[in-house]
């Protein structure tokens, strides 16, 4: 998350003055497991992309291209949904 502000710098009453500013809040710090995506195993079925609740599967030129670690909370749904025989995403413990 960005630098913490003092009580003098923040909006009164905890009001969020801008619409759609949640992208500034990097929820990736919550992660305790990190998904690792293996390009060579991926069959481009988009199941991970369809199921990811945080829109954290990166797509480049119409193809799965990796994971956005700024917002991925490490829930493991992508790894679970990846077909068993393919196994293109593996969850590994996050380094602390």
């Amino acid at each position: 998350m960005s630098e913490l502000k003092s009580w003098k710098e923040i909006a009164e009453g905890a009001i969020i003055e801008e619409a759609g500013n949640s992208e500034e809040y990097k929820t990736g710090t919550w992660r305790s497991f990190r998904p690792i995506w293996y390009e060579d195993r991926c069959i481009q079925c988009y199941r991970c992309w369809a199921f990811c609740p945080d829109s954290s599967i990166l797509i480049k030129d119409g193809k799965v291209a990796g994971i956005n670690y700024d917002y991925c909370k490490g829930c493991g749904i992508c790894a679970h949904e990846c077909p068993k025989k393919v196994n293109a995403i593996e969850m590994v413990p996050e380094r602390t």
Partner: protein
Amino acid sequence: MQKFDAFTGNLAIATAMKQINPDVCAAYPITPSTEIMMLFADFVANGEVDTELVTVESEHSAMSACIGASLAGGRVMTATSSAGLAYMWELLSVASGLRCSMVMTLVNRALSAPLNIHCDHSDAMGTKDTGWIQLFSENAQEAYDNVIQAVRITEHKDVRLPVMVCVDGFIISHSYEKMQYMEDKDVKDFIGEFKPYRSLLNVEKPETFGAMVLPNYYMEFKRQVREGMEKARKVILEVGKEFGDRFGRYYGYFEDFMLDDAEIVFVVMNSAAGTVKHVVNMLRKKGIKVGLLKPRVFRPFPSKEMADALRNAKVVCVLDRAETFGGEGGSLYLETKSALQTAKNNVTVINRIYGLGQRDFLPTHVDDIYKEMQEFLNTGNIKLFDYVNLRD
């Protein structure tokens, strides 16, 4: 131009509300404050105000509706008592935490059980730490004046905290007394137009109200509420002075009644101050140096100013109309004693709990306490804590 007429406390408050003409009132009836909204509903029905009156199903909903209306940019008022305030409790810190401007009249009544509809301050004292400014009123006149001033205080840009105007149930709310009131246009001119600084309904600039805050920011927002309270000190004095300049009745943090040279001092809020004043007058006729300090502002508590006003006292009796059950004494006593300690004034302060559930508090009771204090000055012995007019 001001006129005199006979008013009950409730009528005085309803009249002030009529003259303020708020955008929204949401309230649920509870004795002894019911009559305020009952009278106000007449004003709405007769077209004397253009307020949106929301007849909600509970006090919890009343305060919720007031918060929503305040955030939407409205001028908002309500009234309640006792269990009604208790049922609002959850929302009281929401109102202050979201920096809502609003004015609520609290007609003080005891909390159950046993069920009692009569006056004491246990409702107000139970909410003293919820971030609301608390003004206390001795009589209908002060209730009327406080409600009008409260509008200016709560809407001030440095404050933006809700204000609770307290007045004693039945003793004031249902008794007629002579009161001076202003013309509608003078009240309108004094309070001015409400210019909300943000609005929930502004679709041009959408904002999020009531978002969750994690441990890394919660304390910062509570510190802001404290700042609003601190800033309110100056605003309360400014508004009280301007009110006095315009209407002839000046208001500060407290009233000092024959305090200058007083050695024996009573501290008491709301209607009982009238009873104490009567006894002080009697004793002064005998040449006894006795006085009264009547706090008007309990939140923010005027510690420095009160300690200064009590500097010549040799013994102080703080009268509390609410229990703390297991505390060293009542809330007013604790605040007063703390203020004196900070000022390094080691004067003896005693506490008397009186008038719970509207138990009689008569001049003879004040006189009895005075005699104990006089005895203390001779012997150095006195009970620090006791009940008044209790059967042992």
